């Protein structure tokens, strides 16, 4: 299949899963009712209201978060030149969890001026820990990938230890449930107010890297050869780090930590499109979005009506497909 065909297929599949996702919920919905909700919207009809204000933003958030994590995973793997890298490598997920958990344990009110504080603190936690990790991975004007990975692992462990300490000292079951729920990821809080933040972050990042795809591909050859070929490796790495921390930070802040997507979707992309395709990043975002939408739909079909935590589904359904893909394509990370 040609690369253009893969793109068209991805878009069609996204639309198909979106429509199916709009049909699934507590209120029984058929195609006619769905069309009415869009073209003859009645705000007093609770089914219409649910389709437009609950299901649609949820699906769009799943799409954006899936795309964000896959996109950031691709960038991280290119930056450290290692197929095991993923967006949470910089401590983003643990930092975000720590931020959110601090709010659950009462450091501030749960909402201030209508802003949901766990999300804001998760964003601050993600950015803060990422900054620390980068500072530890930085030496004489250069980012040292190995040092960066080790710093990420160490600080993630430290944040996780704090999260567990707070959880252990928790005095109510409700707080425990909040922490557990957050750590497994969910799109249940999706709303039209929340959606612009991760969407704008992803949109800007995609736009930026559409012009930097060439540098990314050269970076896969290793820092020395990339320098020799005229790529400003240090600057490119800084741009990647800032982008990944911001985009992942917004994704985690809106939906908790969803594992696995950022790790496997970049591999799927390279398996289908080749290691150095011109539009790999864009395709990776599409596949990530589609995969997350599919997992969200499956979670709600398998365990209706609220659905299973999304992190469980991404692993359950993602791993077998991933193993199949790796074996079928005789896939190699950088060639």
């Amino acid at each position, binding site marked *: 299949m040609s690369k253009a065909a893969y793109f068209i297929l991805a878009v069609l599949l996204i639309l198909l899963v979106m429509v199916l996702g709009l049909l699934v*919920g*507590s*209120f029984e919905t058929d195609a006619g009712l769905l069309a009415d909700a869009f073209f003859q919207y009645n705000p007093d009809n*609770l089914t219409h*209201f*649910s389709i437009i*204000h*609950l*299901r649609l933003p949820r699906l769009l958030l799943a799409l954006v978060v899936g795309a964000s994590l896959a996109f950031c995973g691709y960038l991280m793997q290119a930056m450290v030149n290692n197929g095991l890298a993923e967006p949470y490598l910089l401590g983003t997920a643990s930092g975000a969890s720590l931020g959110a958990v601090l709010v*659950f344990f009462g450091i501030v*009110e*749960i*909402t201030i001026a*209508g802003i*949901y504080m*766990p999300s804001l603190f998760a964003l601050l936690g993600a950015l803060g820990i990422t900054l620390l990790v980068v500072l530890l991975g930085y030496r004489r004007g250069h980012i040292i990938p190995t040092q960066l990975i080790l710093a990420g692992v160490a600080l993630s462990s430290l944040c996780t230890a704090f999260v567990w300490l707070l959880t252990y000292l928790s005095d109510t*079951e*409700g707080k425990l*449930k*909040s922490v557990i*729920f957050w750590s497994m990821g*969910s799109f*249940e*809080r999706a*709303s039209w107010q929340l959606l612009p933040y991760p969407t704008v972050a992803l949109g800007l990042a995609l736009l930026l890297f559409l012009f930097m795809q060439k540098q990314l591909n050269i970076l896969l050859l290793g820092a020395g050869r990339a320098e020799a070929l005229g790529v400003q490796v240090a600057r490119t790495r800084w741009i990647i780090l800032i982008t990944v921390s911001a985009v992942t930070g917004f994704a985690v802040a809106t939906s908790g930590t969803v594992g696995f997507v950022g790790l496997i979707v970049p591999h799927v992309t390279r398996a289908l499109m080749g290691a150095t395709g011109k539009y790999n990043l864009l395709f990776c975002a599409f596949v990530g979005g589609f995969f997350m939408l599919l997992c969200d739909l499956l979670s709600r079909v398998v*365990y209706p*009506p*609220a*659905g299973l935590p999304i992190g469980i589904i991404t692993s359950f359904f993602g791993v077998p497909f991933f193993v199949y893909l790796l074996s079928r394509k005789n896939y190699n990370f950088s060639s």
Partner: protein
Amino acid sequence: MRQIRNSYFRKYPLLYSCLLLLLFSCGGERKPAETERVLQDGLGREVHLKKQQPARVMALAASMTEMLFAVCDTASIVARTPHCDYPAAALTKPVVNNYPVDYEQVLLLKPDLVFTVEGITPLEVADRLQELGVPVYYFKFRKVEDIFSGLDEIGRITGREQQAKQLTDSLRQHVAQIEARHQQQQPPLKVLAIAGYDPIYVYGHSTVITDKLRILGAVNAVEETFSPLSREQILKANPDVLLGGTPEEMEKSFFSIYPELRKIKAYQHNRIYAPTSDLMGRASPRVVESIRELEQFLYP
């Protein structure tokens, strides 16, 4: 008959001797001591008591401590958990951590029997206590009547049947009076009782709250659920009354997170109430107090 038995014994003396030996050896181990008493708890488990009547008891759940204080001799209650704060007399008892269970402290206090509730104490903890020589008796509460029969059971176990009966007769009478007042509620009010805001957990259908609502001529707005509720589920249930916090608290910590839920009838008609959390969450002798509190909310 005697001849037949004798002839068998003569035929197979070795077999009979072995069987007799086996019988005596088993009997030596398994034969209950004269004072031992075997009970069956709410989960169908066998509970072996070393004495006919336990002289020292304790509970691993706040609701159970309330029940013990309602029936038992106060001096016989040897401990409380950090969560047990009612009645006031409970606060004078030594504290035993119940999560995780402080086994050493339990052994130090030498209870003859420990009471607890399904879901509060894991079964493996009960097994461990049993190994350490401390029997654990579980209760399971689904209905208001289960609480009363539980009080009667505690009375039977601890030799305080009379005290327990007096108490439960009175409680049953109060409940019957309240129930009689609300049998003609048509249509019944749909009530959603929130247990956690983020994610949204509610008191499900098989909890005592459902029975309290039935007594008040109302219904629980949700079917059985153990997982968090989605906003769409709540919109579909569209409850008439919401229990979970004062209107101000719920506005700040619930409706501001889920503004879409402002569409439900309870919000539109400002029927949001804050029941006392201990009365809602504990299956205790204060259940009548809890029903009366709910009655005031549902029929102001």
